[in-house]
């Protein structure tokens, strides 16, 4: 009798643990990353070496930082298509400062400031014009890129001093990404702003009726996204040692990919910083792994696409399982 009870309790707690596990939205992406990592690791003995892991952290840093800004926008039922172009614009301005001999700290400050200002402009336009973020940021995507070309005259800046390469070398990109993740994870979880973002994404009208300053929050969201693009630009400069107005083309798609893989929903109100980071990690693993596994460039796009679909399928399966459990 007693045994039965404990067995039952055990089973229940076991089940409780399992269903709790299934309730973690990041579960599928973690599972998928583990599968992909094992798959690559079994076939390539280089994969788990320190240098390679360090390489991966550097390779995901730019996308990871941008993705977190993208996540904010998508959770609030928007999107920010201008991130890649803004990165180029910040690069162009930073390049001109570097050419006149500005110190690294000043370039960093100006980059962050310019990113935030352009992001704020996005937010202000969205709020004032009452146009969907996808339209406004599509326009500013072209505008920012255009200004980057006009401002730089299409020219590159090269021969950067080591001060500017620091942000792209060794463990620094990984540290910047980690710091960004921690800061935004705290903001999303423990601040009023974080909760407002989710509230606006879930139901904007209710949020407004509940007294949330929706417009202000939206401006802040896009300002954060712009700020993070500025930060990513500095990592980009450090990693490439060259400043080009064509930088960052298509980065908005990579960022959307990372966010969505990480469980951020385009329906709004759902998603997490950690999930987004994991999405960026998965994309980085794929790129790294395909080279390590000596897969031809012709197949790489195809394989990336299939893996993304598989990851999303797995997530759908998890959600279905959870719903059936509830019934």
């Amino acid at each position, binding site marked *: 009798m007693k045994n039965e009870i404990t067995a039952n309790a055990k089973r229940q707690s076991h089940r409780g643990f399992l269903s709790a596990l299934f309730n973690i939205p990041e579960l599928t992406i973690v599972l998928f990353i583990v599968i992909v990592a094992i798959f690559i690791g079994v076939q390539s003995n280089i994969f788990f070496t320190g240098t390679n892991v360090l*390489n991966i952290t550097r390779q995901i840093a730019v996308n990871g930082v941008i993705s977190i800004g993208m996540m904010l926008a998508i959770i609030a039922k928007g999107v920010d298509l201008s991130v890649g172009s803004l990165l180029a614009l910040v690069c162009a301005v930073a390049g001109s400062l570097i050419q006149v001999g500005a110190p690294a700290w000043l370039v960093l400050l100006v980059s962050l400031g310019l990113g935030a200002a352009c992001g704020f402009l996005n937010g202000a336009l969205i709020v004032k014009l009452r146009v969907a973020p996808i339209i406004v940021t599509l326009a500013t995507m072209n505008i920012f890129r255009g200004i980057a070309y006009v401002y730089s005259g299409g020219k590159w800046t090269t021969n950067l001093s080591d001060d500017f390469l620091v942000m792209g070398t060794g463990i620094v990109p990984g540290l910047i990404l980690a710091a960004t993740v921690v800061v935004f994870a705290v903001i999303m979880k423990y601040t009023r702003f974080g909760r407002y973002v989710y509230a606006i994404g879930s139901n904007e009208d209710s949020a407004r009726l509940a007294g949330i300053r929706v417009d202000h929050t939206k401006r802040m969201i896009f300002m954060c996204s712009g700020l993070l693009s500025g930060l990513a630009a500095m990592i980009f400069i450090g990693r490439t040692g060259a400043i080009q107005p064509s930088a960052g083309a298509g980065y908005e798609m990579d960022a959307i990919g990372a966010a969505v893989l990480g469980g951020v929903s385009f329906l709004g109100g759902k998603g997490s910083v950690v999930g987004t980071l994991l999405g960026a990690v998965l994309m980085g693993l794929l790129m790294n792994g395909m080279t390590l596994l000596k897969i*031809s*460039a012709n197949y790489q796009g195809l394989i990336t696409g299939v893996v993304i679909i598989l990851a999303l399928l797995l997530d759908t399966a998890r959600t279905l399982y959870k719903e059936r459990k509830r019934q």
Partner: protein
Amino acid sequence: MKKVKVFAILALVAVMVFAMFGCSSEAPAESSTPAESSQTAEETQTGSDGEPWKIGIVVKQMGAPYFDYAAEGSKKAAEEMGAEIISYTGPSSEDVNQEITFIEDLITQGADAILVSTADSTAIIPTINKAIEAGVAVFTFDIDAPDSDRLFCITAGDAVESGTAIGESIVEQTGGEGQVALLTGGLGSDTLNQRLDAIEAVLADYPDIEIVATEACDDDFEKCVSQVENLIQTYPDIKAFAGVSTVNPPAAAMAIESAGKTGEIISLGIGLPSQCSEYVDSGTIPELILWDPGVMGYDAAAAAINYLNDGSLPQDGQNFGEYGGEIIVPEGTTVGYIPSIIFTKDNIHDYEF
């Protein structure tokens, strides 16, 4: 207060929009008058009267070192062949409308030939055709206007020729053995694929060189850096990277140097001197394949003078002397490609484009 804010935002947007589109203002009205063209027709005769041929150069942007070298080359050809470069002009930033004005001015001034590098291959067509009608020999260089009546185009970057040059550079720099990875800008580019094929054709004769991988970075500098980092991990014995798009050699060199492999692995391929000079100096890029815009200007001017002298257009394999080199004219076309040259530590600082 609110209205002020709205106004401020609208004004900001307006400024941005103008910043983008301000340059491309209305096209100037057609300014060709019968008087002008008859005057030109008279003056085109002066060349045969013993006076030197008058040649004008119009480029899409003044102040770009690339075109300054081209103009220098043209002047060299003109001096050697007894012609005169009467002007070298272009807009301060790419603007086809100003180019049109410059060409019209040259027609009025009675130029015998005009060399054009256009900012817009379509918008320039009527103006080129008008100049041809007025009896001026119009040659394009660098950027062609293939649908116009221009007589011939001298340009650079023949895919097979430059690919072969990269292949030979790999053989020479690796000593004919070792692992090599190829880098390209995009898998969909015809030119880049032809270049890759040409490299593989050269390397096919060297069984000790192994092409271990070909990666495409979509002309994304950072992606190329990442790919090279991954390739260095995957192939610890790799000796060289060779890129067919200008973004590849500096990106590979950056990755090689930050991996601490300077001196062990080299980066080769097509690149712009200004974007690669630091890596050429450090030895990570021992040599770079590109063309010399000076040769392009030289050959374009020489082709124009030959045409004025005897009505001949450049032929495939025609030699323009020690400096001009042999040009390649694909069959059935009126486009001539100048040969590539090799940039090394010794001459890369002579070029600023």
